[in-house]
């Protein structure tokens, strides 16, 4: 991150609807040109947050600063920002060209120049030139996506906001569009703020990710920080299937698990830690054969297995607790269902997190 003034600063942004606190005291700095993604489950307040940044909602408390200038009361049509909506919100009574040119028409740019810019954007977004006069409702899902992006880019905003625009698109096309969006981010160098409920989507595109829960920003970091060092159980679980064991501080730097009535070796424990969760990613758990060793081991039964494409996931039941273990297909476990198995992991592969 650069030393310059952040392009967008949030200072204690709060938004309440009656007694509901949708967005709760959020502080965040966005660097110029970064691709920042806010991830959270539905109802976490991410859309409300984005609408405040775009000027379609007013914060109940706190300040939004754009390049150091307070913009709380600047309405959406006078902010140098633009939003791509979840529904795309294309103008159904207008052609592709007219949709893209809308912002320019509003600004009073003459028709020839408008058309020139629209064509340029259509080329950049790989829309065929003869789509210019095509009714936008006759375009496919992916094409409409590109029209919406072109329309936002024509506004020439300093920051682009995205409100889950890819959520209604099928998997394969979504993967393509995610990459295209990252390419466009690179080409334009603009600041992108994207919201999604899919951490997978966030990982692919973002420079930094902010995880939101119940109106609060629980963790902000690069994709790899979020993946390797989640601060809470919520963030860890949001990443996908993980093993979570409630633990409390035990003897000599170890943690005690009430479920298993035993102690595990854990990564270094912070001062003042009393209770939390031990998180172990399924790929870090291994099956312990005859002379195999691990710092922590438990014995259970192989209950079921699931093929996940390149990986295979196993469910191992230890008493009432279910562990999930994942192996690459090439390293598939040879045991049969209902076999007694021993599984284990090393302390360095586990993480100790709060709630």
């Amino acid at each position: 991150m650069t030393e310059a003034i952040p392009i967008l600063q949030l200072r204690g942004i709060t938004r309440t609807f009656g007694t509901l606190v949708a967005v709760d005291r959020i502080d965040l700095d966005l660097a110029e040109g970064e691709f920042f993604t806010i991830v959270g489950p539905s109802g976490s307040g991410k859309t409300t947050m984005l609408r405040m940044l775009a000027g379609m909602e007013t914060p109940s408390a706190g300040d939004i600063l754009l390049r150091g200038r307070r913009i709380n009361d600047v309405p959406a049509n006078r902010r140098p920002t633009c939003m791509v909506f979840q529904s795309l919100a294309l103008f159904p009574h207008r052609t592709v060209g007219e949709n893209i040119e809308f912002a320019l028409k509003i600004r009073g740019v003459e028709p020839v120049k408008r058309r020139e810019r629209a064509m340029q954007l259509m080329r950049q977004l790989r829309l065929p030139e003869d789509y210019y006069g095509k009714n936008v409702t006759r375009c496919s899902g992916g094409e409409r996506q590109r029209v919406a992006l072109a329309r936002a880019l024509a506004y020439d905003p300093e920051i682009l906001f995205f409100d889950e625009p890819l959520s209604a698109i099928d998997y394969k096309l979504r993967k393509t569009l995610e990459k295209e969006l990252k390419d466009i981010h690179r080409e334009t160098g603009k600041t992108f703020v994207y919201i999604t409920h899919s951490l997978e989507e966030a990982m692919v595109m973002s420079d930094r990710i902010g995880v939101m829960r119940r109106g609060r920003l629980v963790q902000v970091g690069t994709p790899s920080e979020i993946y390797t060092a989640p601060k809470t159980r919520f963030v860890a679980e949001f990443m996908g299937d993980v093993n979570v064991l409630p633990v409390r501080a035990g003897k000599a730097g170890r943690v005690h698990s009430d479920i298993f009535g035993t102690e595990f070796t854990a990564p270094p424990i912070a001062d003042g830690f009393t209770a939390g969760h031990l998180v172990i990613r399924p790929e870090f758990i291994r099956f312990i054969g005859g002379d195999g060793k691990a710092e922590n081991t438990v014995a259970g039964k192989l209950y079921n297995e699931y093929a996940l494409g390149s990986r295979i996931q196993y469910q191992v039941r230890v008493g009432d607790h279910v562990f999930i273990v994942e192996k690459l297909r090439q390293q598939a476990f040879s045991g049969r269902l209902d076999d007694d198995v021993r599984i284990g992991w090393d302390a360095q592969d586990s993480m100790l997190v709060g709630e």
Partner: protein
Amino acid sequence: MTPAPDQTRRKLSLGAWHALPVIVFLLLGFVAPLLAVIGYSVMPERTFSIWQAPTAENYVTVFTGTSYISFLWSLGLAALTVFFLALICYPIALGLARVFGRWSSALTLVFTIPLFVSENVRMYGWILFLIKNGVLLGTLKSLFGIEMDSWLFTRGVIVFGMVYVYLPFMLFPMTLGVSMVPRETRDAAFDLGATRWQVFREIDLPLSMPGVVIGFLLSFVLAVGAIAEFKVLGGQQVIPITHDIEIAFTYSQNWPLGAALSVLLMLVVGTLVLVVLRRFDLDAILGRR
């Protein structure tokens, strides 16, 4: 594979069988009277048989006579009614849609409750309200000492009556049209730099057009066929074409002339409706929805 066409034929004929009662009903109740009216319009005047040699004399009578004045009054006042209805209903529709969202069209149905009361009864209600020493003028006179001429039996009150009677027919489709404009679409235009007025002109108005056009057509067609407002409230100040038609069929016992006037009215209104519907391609405005 050969039975396929046979099956389709049987299916089609089954469908046709089901449609038959409706077809018969429409033929007897709609097409036959229409044909009878058209048939009578080319019969010699003041005759009651439809089996005579056709003649164009009724149309000649209409075009050389003064019926065009009634035509113009009917069409003109109907147009004026539609104009006022649009001015009154669009803001109401916008307000309803903004405040009540998707419940607004259901709410509009409340506006149709007066339709359960006979139009003539409602007209006489207005007479009691507006007549000299009636509810309005009587109150003004006794409480404030203001004396005014009654507004009754003027052209203005005819338009007022029609606006009052046909309001639900404009408001309902208009509210439907306005509430069909998605909030995000308006937000998007606003976000792209449009002012509130530009959002209204570029988004709200064109996207609510289907409802507006249907409201226009519905209330216009009804207003052209209006007669009670002219007779009761207007006190025969102005003679609408509907009145001419009624007179021809009743007092003057000249069915062929009445039929010719009816046919012409249907032609004029029908042409207008078709022109407007062609001009506003409703499907295109609606997009794929």
